[in-house]
């Protein structure tokens, strides 16, 4: 194995050097607690404010609407649980989808146990929420609609603007989990009528363990962590200063490079998709063919199982991921792949490859050749393929 070809950027990304450089002084030099009075520490407060402004700017929001958290999962938990609590008197119904991240789905399960009602919307075969279904699901008691901006597995981008408009017309709060989309596609919270938005640093070449929740001014959402007065008393705890600096720097970088970076990723992604669909038999592209994240490709190879494929790819220095049961630690394959209508055995044979700005055409060529060889080998030892060939003789 000579070179590592990392195509799992939806899982996490490499921290950009300029992000690391910006963070370092905040560990060993500017280590003061931003809540302290003396100037040495207080200037860290200014540094945090600056990051808040950068992030707000990226969303068309105000700086005081950005609340730092420990990441996407916390932001999602906060948005759902705190809205449920704060708007209890208005109603107890939440609408979300079947393809959300577990940070939303499991929070929804928890809220159901607490007496709330949650509707999980179906999606079409491309993974897109059906607006008619959304409208039909709205009740007088609906307090929140939470639909992810873009799906982490299949990359499908939702009609967020339309969903936001429906939420607004009906006077319902709208939250979106934008963990995969933030920094990848342009987002404007006013244009899309987004009331809350979750994002995470490590998906955009920033550090792990830091994220934020955008909360539109006027949304009466309560404190998630009680304690000190940090984050406008809504999320207590001494700020993760290096993390916040890293997140702000990564955001500025992502916005600066977005156009060129995503154009390049899209071109290579389409090249990858084109070659796989042309050159490997019995394969299907999962997710929307056009409205998908610039760096996401997700395939299902019939007759083979995903974990085997991943291990074989790993042997060739290629990092990818799969929605097979074996990689999820359960007996069922990915809920997203089942929600788009894939039968279990086909969902087991999925492969997600997510590119980065560093991915080259040579990388893709090597990956395609490797996939072709591995898929053929695995099919050779697959009883499902044997049966299929026999049947079609």
């Amino acid at each position, binding site marked *: 194995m000579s070179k590592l070809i990392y195509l799992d950027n939806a899982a996490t990304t490499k921290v950009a050097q300029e992000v690391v450089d910006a963070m370092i002084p905040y560990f060993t030099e500017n280590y003061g607690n931003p809540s302290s009075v003396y100037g040495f520490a207080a200037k860290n407060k200014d540094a945090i404010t600056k990051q808040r402004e950068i992030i707000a700017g990226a969303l068309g929001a105000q700086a005081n609407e950005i609340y730092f958290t420990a990441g996407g999962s916390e932001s999602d938990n906060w948005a759902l649980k705190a809205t449920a609590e704060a708007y209890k008197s208005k109603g107890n119904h939440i609408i979300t989808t079947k393809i959300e991240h577990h940070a939303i789905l499991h929070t929804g399960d928890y809220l159901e146990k607490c007496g709330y009602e949650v509707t999980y919307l179906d999606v079409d075969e491309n993974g897109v929420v059906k607006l008619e279904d959304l409208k039909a699901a709205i009740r007088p008691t609906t307090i929140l609609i939470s639909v992810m901006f873009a799906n982490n597995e299949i990359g499908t981008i939702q009609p967020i603007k339309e969903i936001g408009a429906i939420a607004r017309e009906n006077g319902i709060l709208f939250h979106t989990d934008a963990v995969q989309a933030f920094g990848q596609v342009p987002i404007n919270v006013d244009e899309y009528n987004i009331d809350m938005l979750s994002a995470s640093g490590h998906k955009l070449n920033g550090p792990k363990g830091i994220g934020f929740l955008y909360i539109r001014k006027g949304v009466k959402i309560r404190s998630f962590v009680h304690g000190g007065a940090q984050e406008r008393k809504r999320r207590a705890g001494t700020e993760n200063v290096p993390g916040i600096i890293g997140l702000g720097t990564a955001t500025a970088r992502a916005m600066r490079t977005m156009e060129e970076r995503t154009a390049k990723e899209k071109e290579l992604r389409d090249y990858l998709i084109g070659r796989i669909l042309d050159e490997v038999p019995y394969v299907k592209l999962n997710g929307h063919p056009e409205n998908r994240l610039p760096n996401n490709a997700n395939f299902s190879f019939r007759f083979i199982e995903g974990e085997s494929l991943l291990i074989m790819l790993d042997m060739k220095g290629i990092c990818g991921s799969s929605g097979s049961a074996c990689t999820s630690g359960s007996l069922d394959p990915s809920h997203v792949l089942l929600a788009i209508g894939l039968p279990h*055995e086909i969902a087991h044979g999925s492969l997600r490859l997510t590119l980065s700005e560093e991915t080259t055409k040579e990388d893709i060529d090597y990956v395609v050749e490797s996939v072709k060889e591995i898929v053929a080998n695995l099919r050779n*030892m697959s009883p499902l393929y044997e049966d299929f060939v026999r049947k079609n003789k």
Partner: protein
Amino acid sequence: MYTEKVMDHFQNPRNVGEIENASGVGTVGNAKCGDIMRIYLDIDENQIIQDVKFKTFGCGAAVATSSMATELVKGKSIYDALKVTNKAVMEALDGLPPVKVHCSLLAEEAIHAALWDYAEKHGIKIEGLEKPKSDIHEDEEEESEEY
């Protein structure tokens, strides 16, 4: 997560393939759960397993346990083959992660299913062999859509 032996048997599986007119064929598991094993046995008139082949749809552990199971029963009498337990398969592979133990059970089951098929075809009863539980039938409905 896997031992060297598991990785070796996964990457270089022994006895992959089919046997024409096999003495016994056993298929266990189901595609819904993500693993299917099929074992082919060639058994001579002295009830010795002369050859064994397998095909497996499944994870690394599923392939490795199938491969190891075929190694362990090859050349053995059907009665000795019956004594090859999932524990023996696991030990021969220097262990499996806890979530993959079911793969070794499947391998044991696949051998038993093939032996059962052999016994049925030859009208004999193999002492100690029970009808395999998770046998899936040839005529089970199959996904036929095309991509």
